[in-house]
């Protein structure tokens, strides 16, 4: 369960930091990107795990596999949709007049 706890803790921390920025962005592009990332993760993470490029301590994962990749790995896809649009938006604001220096 260590991996479940780590994943949920990281996603919770990222959500606290990112959601205030994401709330002001159009919802559909974020949602569609999230769906696409989850699908891509389902395909390619299974390739990576299946080819033994990464390995896991079975005692520290939940054991829920889809079909060979641990379900916790999907936290990376969700983390990306939180972090990347937030960074892009905040980095663009810095240059605008009237923003905090």
């Amino acid at each position, binding site marked *: 369960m*260590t991996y479940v706890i*780590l994943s949920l803790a*990281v996603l919770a921390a990222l959500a606290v930091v990112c959601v205030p920025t994401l709330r002001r962005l*159009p919802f559909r592009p974020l949602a569609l990107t999230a769906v696409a990332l989850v699908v891509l993760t389902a395909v390619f993470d299974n390739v990576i795990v299946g080819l033994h*490029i990464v390995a896991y*301590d079975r005692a*520290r994962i939940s054991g829920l596999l889809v079909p060979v990749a641990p379900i916790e790995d999907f936290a*990376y896809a969700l983390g990306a949709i939180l972090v990347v649009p937030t960074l*892009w938006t905040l980095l*663009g604001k810095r240059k605008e007049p009237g923003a905090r220096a």
Partner: protein
Amino acid sequence: MSSVFPGGAYLAALLVSLAGLGFLDWRHRVAVFADARRTLATIGIGVAAFLAWDLAGVGLGIFFRGDSRYLTGIQVAPEVPLEELLFLTLLVYQTLLLWLALSRRVASRSPASRSPASRSPLTATEEASG
């Protein structure tokens, strides 16, 4: 050296994938080719954040480098192969391109009906169109 050197297979796949994204970015002027500094900063900070997440997982003994023959064996940190840096770059770049491209479609479909351009993440790229 040989083109069938299996140790470079994953690295090569990542580089081909990144090149493909780079081509799409160039063709449609989405990220690097619209605002290079903003893109490189987004990718740099994003990759650093995911690397910290990786190191936490490695530190807790959750995951580690596999015994795959498709890895080069070069490591950038304990249990973190060189390829992981490129994988994280691919993840962040893919996310950025998809989201910006989808945002552009939404912005072009609803022309200034609800709120001004400040809502759009595309302030640097809006003049681009097919």
